[in-house]
Every structure is written in C-alpha cells, then in structure tokens.
C-alpha cells in the first residue's frame, strides 16, 4: 500500500509533455473543482443570493409584489408588535421542544424494543417507518377526523361505553398545539427509530459481550455502554428534527388551518400568509429572516463542531 515507487506518476513528469497534454493535465487537476462548479453556482445564486434578496425585501414596504422602496427596519418593528407572530413563535417553541423530545424518546424506545431479536422485525419496522413516506396533504383529513370530538376517538370511546373519555384538543385554543405535536411525532418518530436501529447495529459487539461476562444486566449495559455510544445519532436526529420543526407548514395547513382563531399558527404559516395571501410581502420577508436567524442559531454550532472537530472515518 505505502510503496512510493509509483510517485513518478503523471504530475511530476508534466514538464516533459506536449502543450496539449499539459492542457489536459491542467484540466485534470482542476477537475474536482469543475465538478463542484454547478453546485457552487447553485449555492451562491439560489441560496445565498435569495437570502440576500429576501433580506433586502424585508427592508421595503413591498405589498402584493416586490417594490424596492426602502423603509429600514420598520417591518421588523411591526413584526414584533404583531400578536399573531408572537403566538406563532411561542407555538414553535412548545412544538419543537415536545416534538423533538418525544421523537427521540419514542424512536429510541422503539429501536431498543425492536433490537431484542424480534420475529418479523422488518415488517414491524416498516409499519413504524411508513408515516415518513406520506405527506400531510394525504393524511390531513384522516387526522382531522380522528381528533375531532364528534367524529373520531372521543366518539369511538363513547360508543364503546367509556363515556367520560374526553379528547377535544383540536377545538381547544389552549391545547390545539399539542395535536400538532401528536401528528408530527407520528410522522417522524419512525424515522428516528430507523436511525437509532442503525446506530445500535453499529455498536461494538465485543464490548457488550465483555460486559455480559462481567455480570452486567441488560438494562445496565444499555444505560452505560450502548446509549452513550449513540451520541452522534442523537445529534444527527436533533438536527434533522429541528429542521423539520422549523419548516413545518403542511402540518398546520392540513390539520388546523392555524385555528381555532390563530392559536395553532407556526412561523412558516405566518410567513406564507403575509407574503402571499395578505399582500404584506415586506412583513413576510422580515418574518422569514427571523426564521432563518433561528435556523442559523441551531446550525452554526453544529457545523462548527462538525467541521472543526471530526475528520475521522
């Protein structure tokens, strides 16, 4: 492997080559960069260019369409005086916290349970995983029905004789945000489970065997050895889940429409409503910039540790 005999490869002898070959050589050296070039372009135009565009837009008084008359940070002021925006921010905090925590918890528990040499594991795993395959545009109505007091679970329980059962969160402004959590956890917890199973399968068997020989019980082994080694999985899940949480839009649109009142509004829905249906594009852009700020607050520390710390294989 480490023989140096072949170092006399192409690049060293290039001086002796014809101009045409030299050109080819130069091209070959630049090839990786050339391959990345389209992506480069995409990143700069379509991501950072658009962010810049949106930022500029947020400084204008644009209404139904972009109009480049700048008014400074007026839109941001208006944004933070807007009740509905504050409600949607508060909802996002509650929603993301519960959504991420529950997905991690349920995903992990399911992964551990499925890791017990279960018969038909693949089949059961498929059942837990499938919600990830379907969008809320498809399941929205079914969820609405299930959570509607006079159609869904509550009525079913009453029909079955449990008359004191009550589940009316969907129509209760104080509780409605938790229905969003339920549906979102349903959709994503299976995916988290898959990531955890993948992680569990990657844990070194030798260590577990050794611990068993030392007489450690299975719960102890999970607590002391297996779960700590899943830290990177936790981290990946956290990033993926927080990205799902902050982008959540279909969920609200399909399940509650933001209601009752605007009690279940989330920032993405606020942004869409103002930028596109209410003719307050400047305000919408400002809310998008605030959302982006939130994303960066999560992402930058992650990337920093990711790209600085680990270059391992």
């Amino acid at each position: 492997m480490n023989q140096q005999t072949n170092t006399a490869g192409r690049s060293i002898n290039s001086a002796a080559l014809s101009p045409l070959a030299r050109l080819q050589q130069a091209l070959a050296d630049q090839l990786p960069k050339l391959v990345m070039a389209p992506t480069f372009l995409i990143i700069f135009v379509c991501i950072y260019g658009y962010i810049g565009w949106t930022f500029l837009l947020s400084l204008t008084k644009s209404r139904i369409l972009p109009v480049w008359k700048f008014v400074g940070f007026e839109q941001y002021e208006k944004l933070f005086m807007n009740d509905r925006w504050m409600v949607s921010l508060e909802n996002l905090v509650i929603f993301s916290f519960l959504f991420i925590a529950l997905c991690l918890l349920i995903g992990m528990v399911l992964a551990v349970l499925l890791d017990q040499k279960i018969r038909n594991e693949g089949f059961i795993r498929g059942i837990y995983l499938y919600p990830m395959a379907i969008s809320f545009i498809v399941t929205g109505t079914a969820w609405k029905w299930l959570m509607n007091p006079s159609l869904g679970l509550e009525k079913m329980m009453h029909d079955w004789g449990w008359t004191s059962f009550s589940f009316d969160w969907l129509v209760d402004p104080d509780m409605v945000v938790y229905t969003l959590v339920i549906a979102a956890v349903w959709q994503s917890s299976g995916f988290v489970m898959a990531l955890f199973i993948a992680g569990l399968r990657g844990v070194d068997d030798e260590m577990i065997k050794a611990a068993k020989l030392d007489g450690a019980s299975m719960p102890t082994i999970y607590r002391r050895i297996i779960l700590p080694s899943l830290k990177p999985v936790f981290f990946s899940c956290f990033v993926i889940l927080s990205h799902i949480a902050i982008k959540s839009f279909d969920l609200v649109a399909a399940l509650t429409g933001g209601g009752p009142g605007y009690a279940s509004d989330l920032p993405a829905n606020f942004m869409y409503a103002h930028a596109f249906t209410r003719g307050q594009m400047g305000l919408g852009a400002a809310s998008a910039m605030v959302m982006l700020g939130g994303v960066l607050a999560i992402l930058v520390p992650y990337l920093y540790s990711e790209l600085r710390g680990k270059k391992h294989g």
Partner: protein
Amino acid sequence: MVEAPMTVTRRAARLGLYAILAAVAFIYLMPVWVMLITSLKDVEEIRSGNLLSLPSSLNFDAWVTAWGSACAGSSCEGISSYFWNSFQIVIPAVIISTLLGALNGYVLSFWRFRGSELMFGLLLVGCFIPLQVILLPMARTLAFFGLANSTPGLVLVHVIVGTGFTTMFFRNFYIGLPQELIKAAKLDGAGFFFIFRRVVLPLSTPIIVVTVIWQFTQIWNDFLLGIVYSGAETQPVTVALNNLVNTSFGGKQYNVDMAAALIAALPTLIVYMVAGKYFVKGLTAGAVKG
C-alpha cells in the same frame, strides 16, 4: 445462538414486548386504516357509521372514480394523468440530484481543495432554508432561463433544493470509506472519473438507496413547488389531489377523496415497503455517522 430454555418470567416479558410492539403498530396504522376503510364505503355509510367500523361490502367504485373520472377543477378525468406527470418530474429530478450529490460527496471526501469544507458548510445551511423564502426569486430565475411553468423548470428547482441533502448523505458516507483505497487508485494513475466509476460507485449501493428513497419521497410529496412552478397541463399529483379534494358538487364524496389520497401516496408507500429494509441497512452503513 444457543436457545436457552425460557423461564416463565422471560416468556411473560417476551409476550409483553410483542404486545407493546403490536399496540404501537396499531396506533401508527390508524390514520391510513381510517382512510382505507373510508375509501371502501359509500357516502351514506360514511355519514351514518363509526369512523373505524368496517365497510359492509368491498366497494372499489371510489377508487375507480378517483383514478379515472373524479373532477378536479373543471376537468373530470381523475388523477391518473397527473400521476404520470409526477413520475415525469420525480424520475429525472431524483436521478440528477442523486448523481450530483454523489459527485459532490466524492469531491468533498477524496479530492478536497482549499475551501471545500467551507463549501460543504454553506451547502448544509442551504438545506435548512424554508421553501417559502425561495418561491419568488426562484420564479424570476426560472423565467430568466425560459423555464417558467414547465416540467424541466420544476425538475431544476427540485434538483436545486435537494442537492444539499444528497451531498450531505454521500459526503458523510464516503468519509467513512478507507482513504487508502482511493489513494492506491490515484497512485496507479487512475483518473478522477475512473476512480469514481470503478472504485467508489460500486461501494455506494447502500447510500444510493437511502438517497433515492429520501429524494423520491420528498419530491413526490411536494405540493408548494409543484403548484407554483408547474405548467397547467403538467401539474403533479399532489396538486391534482388538492384540487380534487376542494372540488365538490354538493355533498363531499369522502370515499373518493380518500381513495385519491391513497392513490397519490401509493408510490412512496411502495418504495418504503419494498426498499425499507435497505433504507435501514443504508443508514447503518454510514449515513448516520458524522
């Protein structure tokens, strides 16, 4: 594995375990189960019956209607043609974004250059942008290239939106491969694309599966980009589904709505069912790391 004789408690524990798994499976299946049985009932039965009560007979009329003759907007042709539109969008978009992601991941792992790590970081940030932010500027860009409201334009948008994710997947996978492999090939004088095709790509099956499943699901389920950037005749199935559900001729036909929704979800469901095993395998093989 040596089969240890099971004690009573152990057996009870196993039983409890299966009971829990089955109960959870029941909960996970409920929404789609409700949709399925609703699609098989007629309108009268839906009105009078319980949400979870079984249909009195198997009646596939709603499925036939949803596929071929339900009205969405002012055309009454069901969602079949839109279904094919979706494939025309999804297939090229998945192939291109996966290929691009593989090449990017390959460069970022084995052919690093100055600033390549920074680029990766910038790319990752791009994954997290709320889609609503890019709607208008993207519309302008597409118009500039003459691709507004056309299938190629929509494919391009999906590629742009998806490349961040695919690159991340491949890069995280490749970084787990032994560097020596590629070094040796380089020393043998193999070129950039030769190594990619002959050395790296054959090892990539697990991550290709993960990426394709992810991209397929994302693009198939997309509604917002589809409705904004597709042309009138090339709308994807999610848009048609929305139109169909919101088009009513006196009295909602929930059975047809549900059948249409299930048809629209079928391809992704099948992909998960068929390839779900490889999905977990692929994740195990490295997508999780890093």
